[in-house]
């Protein structure tokens, strides 16, 4: 566990859907939560809670393929995204639920949520009751897995349909007393109408997002899609740092317009990402791909980083951040047209690569040019043509020197 000595007393614990979490960091339903022994190690490392990998009833056949994962590399980063065609847990539900009881006995302060999936009303209600009886603090219903399950009328096939979502959410809510979270899919144009029906059904909150449906690539020698299961594949669920913007958008949408508690998940790597999810309206933050990549103990950096940040901000609880970023989120129409910025370059920091010149010339409005030989030492420092610069901000994104390019308010 992390020892943090702080000037002003920061308390990382949060209350979410009526349940107290020792901190807002929760292991998402995925391979890191497939076994009680693994979750126990996660709790030892400092995770506030865990969502047990999705369970189905005994008769549900879980027939896995291999390989089921493939990563996306980009430049020097070897896992900016991960695609999987894994399925729900293939473990025996009785064994898994027995471990839930053990976990609650050994870690009474940590929150155990069980993710589950079923087909009929009777099945949904049966599994929900069994999860409750096992001692779980909360239930998470997966209406969102984008591969495999939808072909059988489950997973995201439910979460893409507001009526199916409402019906099933209500089945579960009616069957149990513990809070129910509904995990929704981002593979929809707008999550809000669906989330509204979840609220109407009486669920305690929404978990969003599940993975983004994607196709990670092809093998250029064999032409086989990836991950290649004997030269064949299928679209899968895409996760990791690459999907964070998609996740933040859905969290903010739901938190702002549906006003229901949200468990945010999707692409969290550092405590800074987690703060963004809180600002977008998430009450807790779930993490999966980063844990798979680096191990449970990265939670130390999430907890300590968040605590020190709160201390710096003069705050005492992560709950003070929840939804704080939503005020500034408005329609495009509502954005100011009076506020104008123009590109600015720090001459001392510029190394003269011209990346911004190319970007502006071919991807912008030809407002940047090298000053040329007459400028002597500053020959390769670009000059901004204020007339041509429309203030798009793209140059800032391509500059390799941190802090060299910025957008300054226009003075005229």
């Amino acid at each position, binding site marked *: 566990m992390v*020892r943090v*000595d702080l000037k002003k007393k920061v308390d990382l614990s949060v209350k979410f859907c009526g349940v107290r979490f020792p901190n807002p960091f929760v292991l998402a339903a995925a391979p890191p939560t497939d076994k009680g022994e693994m979750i126990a190690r996660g709790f030892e490392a400092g995770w506030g809670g865990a969502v047990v990998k999705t369970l189905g009833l005994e008769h549900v056949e879980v027939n896995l393929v291999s390989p089921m994962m493939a990563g996306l590399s980009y430049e020097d980063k070897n896992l900016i995204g991960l695609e999987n065609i894994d399925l729900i847990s293939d473990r025996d539900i009785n064994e898994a639920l027995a471990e839930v009881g053990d976990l609650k006995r050994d870690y009474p302060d940590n929150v155990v949520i069980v993710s589950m999936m079923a087909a009929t009303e009777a099945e949904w209600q049966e599994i929900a009751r069994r999860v409750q009886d096992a001692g779980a603090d909360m239930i998470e219903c997966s209406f969102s897995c984008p591969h495999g399950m939808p072909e059988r009328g489950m997973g995201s096939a439910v979460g893409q349909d507001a009526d199916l979502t409402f019906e099933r959410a209500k089945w579960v809510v009616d069957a149990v007393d513990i809070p129910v979270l509904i995990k929704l899919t981002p593979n929809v144009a707008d999550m809000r109408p669906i989330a509204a029906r979840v609220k109407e059904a009486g669920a305690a909150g929404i978990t969003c997002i599940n993975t983004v449906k994607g196709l990670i690539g092809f093998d250029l020698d064999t032409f086989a899609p990836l991950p290649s299961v004997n030269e064949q594949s299928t679209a899968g669920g895409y996760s990791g740092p690459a999907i964070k913007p998609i996740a933040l958008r859905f969290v903010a949408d739901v938190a702002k317009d549906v006003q229901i508690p949200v468990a945010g998940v999707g692409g969290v*790597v*550092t*405590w*800074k990402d987690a703060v963004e999810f809180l600002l977008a309206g998430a009450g807790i933050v779930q993490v999966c791909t980063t844990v798979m990549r*680096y*191990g449970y103990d*990265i939670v*130390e*950096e*999430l907890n*300590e*980083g968040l605590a*020190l940040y709160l201390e710096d901000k003069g705050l005492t609880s992560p709950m003070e951040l929840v939804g704080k970023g939503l005020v500034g989120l408005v329609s495009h129409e509502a954005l100011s047209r009076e506020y104008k910025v123009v590109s600015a370059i720090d001459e*001392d*920091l510029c*190394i003269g690569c011209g990346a911004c010149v190319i970007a502006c010339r071919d991807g912008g409005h030809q407002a940047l040019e090298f000053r040329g030989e007459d400028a002597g030492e500053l020959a390769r420092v670009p000059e901004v043509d204020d007339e041509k610069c429309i203030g798009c901000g793209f140059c800032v994104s391509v500059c390799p*020197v*941190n*802090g060299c390019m910025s957008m300054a308010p226009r003075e005229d």
Partner: protein
Amino acid sequence: MAWGWMQGADDMTGYAQKVEELSESGRTYSPHEAVLEASRCLMCDEAPCLDGCPAGVDVRRFVRKIRFGNFRGAARLIREANLLVGICGRVCPQEILCMENCTRGNLDTPIDIAGLQRFAGDIELGTLAPLPVRAEGRGEKVAVLGAGPAGLAAAAELRKLGFGVEIFERADSMGGVLTQGIPPFRLDRRFVESELDYIGRLGADVHLGRDEKDVAALLKSGFDAVVIGVGLYRPYTIGLPGEDLEGVFVAADLLAAVARGEQPDLGKRVVVIGGGNVAIDAAMTAQHLGAERVDLCSLESYDELPAFRSEVEIAQSEGIEFHTQTKPVKIVGTDGKVSGYEGVGIRWKTPGLLVPSNAEEIPGTEFRLAATAVIEAIGQGVLDCYEGVDADERGLIRVDQETMVTSMPGVFAAGDVVSGGATAVQAFAEGKRAATGVAAYLNEAATGDAASTEGGGR
């Protein structure tokens, strides 16, 4: 340009200038650059870098903290293991310790752990580093002899554990080798000041200019334990003909004088005798003092030089001439002043045994160098003996390596006065270990007393 020094050394005349530039700007990595470097870390399982640190810093964990943007957490973590983080980041030979073990080196180049540690240490520079959580105050008082790396580490750790500490330092300033030995161009004094200030804030009482030698008397006068960390302050001399000439220096005295701000006149041509870090420091210092040519003569071959490889390479790139595998014959004088140096090539009678008595002269390899000054840097020995404390024939104090306790109960020793001369980081580590030994000793005494009092009361 801010990024200039990151881009290779083409436009640099050398290390000293680089260090000067860095000290002036106070700049190491920017946060952005630090994250980029830390994200190269493979975050290995059972990371081998951990095994390389004498001070027990959890390298993988602090690099991970930087990697995930938890900078202040990184600074805290290092300081928890090593209270003198800022100094260690600058004088520790990481390239032969943690960085040598770095797995990333098998792929391309090791993580710049030294640079990242400096980055983490500097986060606290100029701000008041938070004090460690201290144990409840205890009645016992410990005397620490010497305010160098070993003594300071012991004092800091003892304060952290709640003991009262008084430091007795022979010199009139704190720091020991940090302020009197290592030249300012290799260790920015601001970092030393900041660390000394930190120790001060921990609440240790310091007595400067007080040379306490009678440890038995200290134990009788109210101290419950003593830690000896006085280092090595008797410079060895060779006994060469001509050693009494004007212009002959011993390196330790010269470096101490320069550290005090003096500018001794060495003239234009300086010969340094020795092959260790002090010899390299002396040679570079001679250059700083205006010598146009500096020759360094060592018994050891180039590959056998005991100085850190990085320091040797810097000295070489700075134009210092190496005459390895040679031994001094005499210092030549004119009108009572140094005018030259004579040496002769040697080979080892028994390979690998790097001591003067094993050197065999090679006839016909005699050479002569013009010189205005000669600096002897062949090592330092123990200045004083401590009555009742067992030492070897060189005066080095014998200890139990686990607790650092000496032959006298309640008296502990750490640092060069035990090892005979090692790195500052090893002295830090031993000082810390001695503090743990003291704590165990005093805890045992406390429980023993309590038990006997209890027994007596019944």
